[in-house]
């Protein structure tokens, strides 16, 4: 009997997992004892971190796209199909008009934007959480020479926990180097009582924002946006006039998860160490789709994929899976256009951002290039 492993989502987590399994289980796959299928709803793999650089004219969306067929090991059955339903009782998926059975299922469906839940957000706010969104923001930033730029973190959790801080620090530097900063005010808003969800990152960020003359509004949860008046109002009653509004939009998980009854908001509840779904048998979730309280970051998706590859390898070999995820997340933090630091943390260790340097900025740019080797499973 062939053990059928189905992976839904060919983003960071899904691709790393598929390639890792293809390597570990090569003998079993070649012998027909294991089959690995990867479903993705588009032909390309998308490396989303590029979008932050697109907004500042440093990269093009195409730099973050590669055909999955070039990245995925030939031992994996790559299916460019949207999965429309999951039946965890029958252990089947609906995709491409047919039904496919599985023995083990991994959900790696990522996040999507929900710009309709806040009045005026679609019309009034720009963001860098999508290809066309980041080019629209780039065009707007290029013609912005004076006024009030507001970066408002609305969605939380959101992809890349440090991206909002990176954005304002990069914008500050970018406008300064173009001689425009004196005519541009920058405000950063955050939903809770400090500048970041993680108190160590918040402590690090506060003086740096002040140093750069970036105003801060904490406990600010956007309620409505009035694009005609350029007004952002919070649930706490604060009103902010803006000339250019950039938001971190609310995120949800995939509609598939909600429709299939695997999680109310599109995230799947899983054990934070084993990544196994708490309510469904033989189902794992990794990356953004997993509701485990760790940030929605590609590095976390990558580390989780490695853990699940080891666990599934043990399962198909009739061994007790022992690999577990320790919460590890690593993110570079751009602190300007040519310097960066990084944060690394896990369930037991807090982040402690170091002094920004040019070397770390270049390391981040080098990582953006070498990412394609990571996706192939070579790094």
């Amino acid at each position, binding site marked *: 009997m062939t053990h059928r492993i189905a992976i839904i989502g060919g983003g960071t987590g899904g691709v790393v997992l598929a390639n890792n399994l293809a390597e570990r289980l090569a003998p079993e796959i070649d012998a027909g004892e294991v089959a690995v299928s990867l479903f993705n709803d588009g032909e390309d793999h998308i490396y989303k971190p590029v979008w932050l650089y697109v907004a500042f004219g440093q990269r093009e969306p195409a730099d973050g796209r590669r055909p999955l067929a070039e990245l995925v090991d030939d031992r994996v059955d790559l299916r460019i199909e949207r999965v429309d339903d999951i039946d965890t009782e029958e252990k089947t998926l609906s995709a491409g008009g047919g039904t496919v059975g599985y023995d083990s299922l991994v959900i790696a469906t990522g996040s999507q934007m929900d710009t309709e839940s806040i009045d005026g957000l679609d019309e009034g706010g720009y963001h860098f959480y999508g290809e066309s969104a980041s080019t629209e923001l780039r065009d707007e930033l290029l013609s912005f020479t004076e006024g009030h730029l507001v970066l408002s973190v609305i969605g939380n959790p959101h992809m890349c926990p440090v991206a909002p801080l990176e954005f304002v620090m990069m914008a500050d530097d970018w406008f300064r180097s173009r001689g425009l900063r004196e005519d541009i005010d920058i405000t950063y808003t955050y*939903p*809770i009582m400090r500048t970041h969800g993680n108190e160590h990152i918040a402590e690090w960020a506060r003086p740096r924002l002040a140093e750069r003359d970036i105003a801060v509004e904490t406990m600010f949860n956007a309620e409505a946006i009035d694009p005609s008046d350029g007004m952002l109002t919070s*649930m706490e009653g604060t009103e902010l006039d803006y000339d250019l509004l950039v938001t971190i939009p*609310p995120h949800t998980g995939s509609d598939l998860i909600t429709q299939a009854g695997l999680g109310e908001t599109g995230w799947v509840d899983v054990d934070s160490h084993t990544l196994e779904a708490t309510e469904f048998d033989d189902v794992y979730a990794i990356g953004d789709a997993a509701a485990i309280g760790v940030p929605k970051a590609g590095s976390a998706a990558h580390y989780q994929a490695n853990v699940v590859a080891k666990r599934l390898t043990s399962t198909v070999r009739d061994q007790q899976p022992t690999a577990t995820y320790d919460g590890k997340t690593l993110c570079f933090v751009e602190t300007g256009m040519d310097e960066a630091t990084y944060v690394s943390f896990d369930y037991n260790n807090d982040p402690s951002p170091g002094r920004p340097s040019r070397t770390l900025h270049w390391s981040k740019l080098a990582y953006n290039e070498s990412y394609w080797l990571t996706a192939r499973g070579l790094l």
Partner: protein
Amino acid sequence: MSTESIDADRTVDSRGATCPGPMMDLVGAIRDAEVGDVIELLSDAEQSTTDIPAWADESGNEVLAIDDAGDHYQIYVRKT
């Protein structure tokens, strides 16, 4: 007010989430709720017992009760 007499319109289960998860879940629920609706938030993060009243105070919503249920808290907030 005794929590037994509080009828919640919606329960949001944030057990297992670390801060600011429970508060963000509550903010989302209040955003979607009608004025007068009561949200019951389940959280096992101690910080919720101070963060939620601070936020309710700031946003003008009303914390009706915080009940210690042993391994988690039940926090009732009315949208005003």
